[in-house]
């Protein structure tokens, strides 16, 4: 029986310029903290779903990431967030699209999965359920950062407006996510995002699309994506990775192959973290940059790109 594994990412984007070092240190700190918190939970007996939620809650609370606090703004200057969680047992899933004022959208997605007969709630209906379910609500201002405001101003200054491919062209760093295996061998995935700066009001990306930005099946594996949302959706990226793994392909190869297929079909770029049902992992990205961290067998690995692999032993 494979042991606990936690794999998280803080979003894919272009190779950052030197003056982004402070932000990159913050991203690394964030993904390491999230992975550690989730791993500790697993060792204490938490389920994969609990740990996947814990990891992404942690990332949502760090303002450096584009999820929860620090979410990018839509064209109207508001925060509208998407999130999802999927349990590899029985394909249970919960997702939320374009929800406002929720501090941790991944926890709302969990409530949808656990407390409703539905998979996806959006907009005002989602906000209504958020109030009923008891997740923490906050004034929108608490989620907005100076960085998000600047990113919106920059998009508005472009002559032709928003280009969704911009996510991997500039400093835009997208969605956060986690893929987890617990000590019983169960898999779970989670994902959360504020979306693209300057997106149309009500725009939903790949994150809450089961089979697009996220998928998880105990019988095969788990995949969570970040990057150009529309490209991810149109090519069913997470689904493709799971299908490739079901034919016996290793997670790294499955992720790389699916990303290349997406690039060829629709010219989109993305990053993805992958786990198979044996706990083997894949860290894949063709945008140049993706902060990530993994905890497995008391070994912490991390990097700022798919090729950047650093390791240290830790004791927990």
């Amino acid at each position, binding site marked *: 029986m494979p042991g606990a594994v936690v794999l998280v990412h803080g979003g894919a984007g272009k190779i950052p310029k030197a003056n982004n070092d402070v932000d990159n240190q913050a991203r690394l700190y964030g993904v390491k903290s999230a992975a550690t918190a989730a791993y500790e939970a697993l060792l204490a007996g938490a389920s994969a779903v609990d740990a996947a939620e814990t990891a992404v809650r942690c990332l949502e609370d760090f303002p450096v990431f584009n999820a929860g606090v620090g979410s990018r703004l839509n064209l109207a200057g508001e925060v509208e967030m998407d999130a999802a969680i999927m349990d590899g047992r029985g*394909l249970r899933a919960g997702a939320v699209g374009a929800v406002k004022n929720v501090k941790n959208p991944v926890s709302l997605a969990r409530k949808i999965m656990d407390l409703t007969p539905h998979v996806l709630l959006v*907009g*005002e209906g*989602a906000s209504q*359920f958020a109030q009923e379910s008891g997740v923490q609500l906050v004034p929108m201002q608490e989620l907005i950062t100076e960085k998000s405001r600047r990113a919106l101003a920059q998009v508005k200054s472009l002559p032709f407006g928003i280009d*969704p491919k911009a996510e991997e062209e500039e400093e835009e760093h997208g969605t956060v996510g986690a893929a987890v295996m617990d000590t019983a061998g169960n898999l779970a995935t989670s994902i959360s995002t504020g979306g693209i700066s300057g997106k*149309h009001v009500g725009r939903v990306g790949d994150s809450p699309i089961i089979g697009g930005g996220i998928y998880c099946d105990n019988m095969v594996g788990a995949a969570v994506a970040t990057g150009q949302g529309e490209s991810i959706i149109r090519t069913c990226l997470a689904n493709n990775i799971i299908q490739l793994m079901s034919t016996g392909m290793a997670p790294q190869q499955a992720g790389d192959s699916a990303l290349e297929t997406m690039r060829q079909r*629709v010219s989109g770029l993305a990053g993805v973290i992958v786990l198979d049902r044996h706990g083997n992992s894949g860290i894949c990205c063709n945008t140049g940059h993706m902060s990530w961290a993994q905890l497995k067998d008391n070994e912490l690995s991390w990097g700022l790109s798919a090729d950047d692999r650093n390791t240290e032993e830790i004791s927990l």
Partner: protein
Amino acid sequence: MPTEPVIIVHGGAVSGVHTYGSSEARVLGVQAAALAGWEKLKETGCALDAVEVAVCSLEDNPTFDAGTGSVLNQAGEIEMDAIIMDGKNLDTGAIACVQNIKNPVKLARKVMENTHHCLLVGKGANLFAEKVGISTVPLEELVTEISRQKLELCNGSYEDRCKHAFKASNVKKCVKHSDGEHDTVGAVAIDVHGNMAAATSTGGITAKMVGRVGDSPVIGAGCYCDNVSGGVSCTGHGESIMKVTLASRITMYIEEGLSAQEAAEKALDYMFNKTEGAGGVIAVSKTGEVGVHFTTGFMSWAFVKSGKLHYGWIPGENHTRAVE
């Protein structure tokens, strides 16, 4: 060499003996939609135009749970979902939980053609409708007496209603519980240039939570279309369809070498085994083969190919007549 054009539509997979509307109305409705799509295929030679016209026909027909005739959510309102997909380059437009729009599939097409996005929801989708000049209609124009009755007679939990509405081939058991059934609509076409398109539209399931989105507007779930494999539109228990990404599962099976019919059957079996959910699908492969399968009691469907109109409602049924 030009491809032989095909258009197929469905009017929803339903449980057992229906007490709302007639099977005749459903069959006439899908026939009219398929023929309208066929005329469009002949006129413009464009699969995308054909599926839009076919789905609009079904949305305007109060018999079906899409556009006019949409079922009501928990709050007694109508929230509609729709999607359209172009198999040529995977361009997609979808909307979810939009209100007071007569033809949601038209709005979905505008999302595809006028934005860089794939999916707009809720108030944002309605704002976009204003921006692109799609007018709203009063709720009363979309609500039917039958939709109201379905909501009023809804007792028991949503899960119970779904179990009865979508229990696979559970005709006898469903006689007493025929509320909650719904008739999502959809269409798939291949045109003379070999380009494919697919579309799905729905009002959802009676008494769904406000803001609930099912499979219909979700790419890969309620709809998928890719010139390299085929096009699919689905209907049935939305949450189950989403969990197994039913539409893209079917195109994947086709790519692996199964016929459209084999792929449809295998995918619905898979869905039942994994989730116990039931539904129906229509599929067209890139070579123009047609697949129709449903694991519920009934599904209205019709397609036009080689000068013939095919249609059915009961499992195994396949009537044909010539088309001019």
